[in-house]
């Protein structure tokens, strides 16, 4: 018998509308509001032992505190499964449901599923690992929304393997190795025959969606600009004093180039593990063009080279880490009056 806990907001708990949206997390025994329908759908497989209620505004303004209180309550209730929503198109409610479902699953290891419309901003919790089942946009579709929410919850709680295609939840951006049902060669031949015939086929690896960044405005006159040199080639002072890893780098470093007219072989080296570094180590200016950059600075083609260059290793580095490095570098160089950057990649 599954101990199910249901999460709803103040409105679906019947406690009021916007005026009660600042309600702090509280618990009621048994099902409340739509939870009663969940209870009847459970048909003896389980019981909605309690309902957690939280005001949408309180959650939006104090998410950590709200989650902390809800986690304590969930833990005390010894829930086997937590179901949140359905939030339909309600944005704050959806964000709360998604976050509570994520928190229960990832931090308390309690199977948890939320339901909301697929355009609800709360679906971002799926990318963080929450199971979210899509549903209609208005509460008029409550009767249709609950069964899939419950069904996925029960399957998740049973420990069965799940996949978005089969079980109808939003992709969580997680890839997992499994034993293929058919050999890759067979799948490949089937796929090419389908493609030739113009029949539909399903590609097995999602193509990455890379966001476009609005280009930064150009430098009006580069001769007046301070330029910073940045690299992911792994160029570091000999001996790698800050121990930058040769793959999956955990940090970047900055090193002074003030007064340096170029990188001397032997004094600088590359620690990048993804390519053969002999050619670069023979002349490190092949990685970061300090010698020529300095000459251009002297010739007035740029006003100044920034006194430090920034380096990390771009070998198996996660996108998030690379973004974090760049943000830190950007904030430092902006404060120092740098207007542009040259980034060398291997």
């Amino acid at each position: 018998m599954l101990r199910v806990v249901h999460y709803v907001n103040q409105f679906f708990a019947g406690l009021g509308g916007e005026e009660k949206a600042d309600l702090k997390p509280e618990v009621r025994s048994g099902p409340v509001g739509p939870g009663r329908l969940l209870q009847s759908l459970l048909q003896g497989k389980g019981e909605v032992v309690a309902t957690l209620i939280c005001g949408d505004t309180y959650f939006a303004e104090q998410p950590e505190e709200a989650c902390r209180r809800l986690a304590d309550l969930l833990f005390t209730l010894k829930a086997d499964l937590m179901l949140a929503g359905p939030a339909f198109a309600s944005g704050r409610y959806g964000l709360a449901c998604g976050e509570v479902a994520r928190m229960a699953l990832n931090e308390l290891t309690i199977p948890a599923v939320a339901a909301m419309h697929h355009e609800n901003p709360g679906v971002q919790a799926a990318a963080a690992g929450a199971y979210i089942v899509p549903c209609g946009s208005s509460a008029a579709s409550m009767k249709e929304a609950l069964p899939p929410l419950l069904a996925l919850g029960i399957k998740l709680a049973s420990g069965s393997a799940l996949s978005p295609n089969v079980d109808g939840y939003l992709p969580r951006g997680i890839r997992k190795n499994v034993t293929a049902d058919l050999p890759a060669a067979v799948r490949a031949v089937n796929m090419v025959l389908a493609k030739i015939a113009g029949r539909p086929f399903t590609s097995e690896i999602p193509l990455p969606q890379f966001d476009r960044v609005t280009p930064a405005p150009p430098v009006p006159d580069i001769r007046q600009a301070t330029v910073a040199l940045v690299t992911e080639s792994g160029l570091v002072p000999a001996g790698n004093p800050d121990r930058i890893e040769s793959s999956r780098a955990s940090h970047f470093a900055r090193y002074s180039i003030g007064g340096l007219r170029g990188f001397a072989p032997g004094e600088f080296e590359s620690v990048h593990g993804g390519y053969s570094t002999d050619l670069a180590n023979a002349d490190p200016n092949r990685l970061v063009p300090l010698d020529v950059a300095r000459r251009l600075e002297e010739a007035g083609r740029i006003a100044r080279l920034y006194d430090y260059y920034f380096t990390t290793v771009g070998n198996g580095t996660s996108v998030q880490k690379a973004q974090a490095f760049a943000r830190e570098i950007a904030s430092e160089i902006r404060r120092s009056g740098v207007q542009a950057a040259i980034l060398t990649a291997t």
Partner: protein
Amino acid sequence: MLTVREHIVRDIRIGGENSLRDGLLTVAAEQILGLATHPVIRSLELHVARPGENVRIIRILDAIQPRAKGGDGVVFPGFLGPARVAGGGETHILTGTALLTVSVLPRAQEALIDMAGPGAGICPLAKEHLLILEFTPVEGAPWGEYEAAIRLAALRIAAHVGGIARSAPPDRSLCVPPTSSAIGLPRGGYIYNIQAQGSFKDTFVYGRSARDILPTLISAGELLDGAVVSGNYSHPSLKNSTYAHLTNPIIRELLSRDGDDLAFAGIILKPEPVTLEGKELAAEYAANLASLLNWQGAIVTKEGGGNADTDLFLTAERCERRGVRAVLLMAELAGPDGRTPPLLGSLPEADALVSVGNYEEPVSVPSVERVIGGDSLRLADGPVAGPLTIPTAPIFGALSPVGIGSLRARAQ
């Protein structure tokens, strides 16, 4: 036309006289050791590892499926005999078994096979009876010479062991025609990317490095006779071992369906140059060949890590532009937790992808009783025989780009 005689091996024993009877392969040790005599090879030690045994093998360089010609000719032309075009006559192959070459070698990425446990389940070679050739070098021998010597010795031994099957009745026979005679069926071919960058990251075609070749045609029979041999010791699970070249499942599948629902339009062997310009030329040239030969579709495989993805995507782009529909096989770099976007970059034409698994997913393997190949492993925090948690990457052949493995990744 090549006639292949397949002999299934169900057990191996070292000792006594060479024979293959009812699936039991017996190999005389002295003859094998005699084939490894070379000034730079100090010793060769033979081991056997069977599926399910509590043993871990490390320092694996290559795997080879034994085979020998039935009459005239040699297998592994260019190595064991003059470089003459192969793929005719009769070839005996032993299935259910493979030779492994094991040795220390600089720049070889660490590779591992567990014959039992979770590591075995995802390793295609853990299901084979393995005859392990553990070589050691003479001290001070130049590594390039040593590497060439052990490759030659291993190929000789593979042919010698294959020869034991000549007098045994085959379990199965297979005819492999040089080209397809199917008409009125969709014409599908195979663009076969091989990594050839020079020392220790090389592939040999008729005994010669494929580093600077242009894409070229090759037939299934030639591959079955060992025209393509691996000298690549990078990425244990993303490279093509000689075993993979010999048993290539893409080719097997295309052969088996030739005349049924497709016409096997041919194989284009294609290198993976290291410059963008080189990659573009190779992709363009291969796509052009495919188009000249009226291929309607192409299956494309790669060899190696992320850099080779560009070769794959460019090939897809150039094929699609010419109306040749492309399907690509590749492993994913989805991070240890499966959350990193699985591809580094792509082109819109790369819309038909077959997954062979996430490279970085961790695998926990238990401790083992016996280790073959050495007593230290940089991958291991503790003793080499101890329990390990490693990414899928070092498990030999687990993410095979030509599909000898059994993994794929799915959304979870």
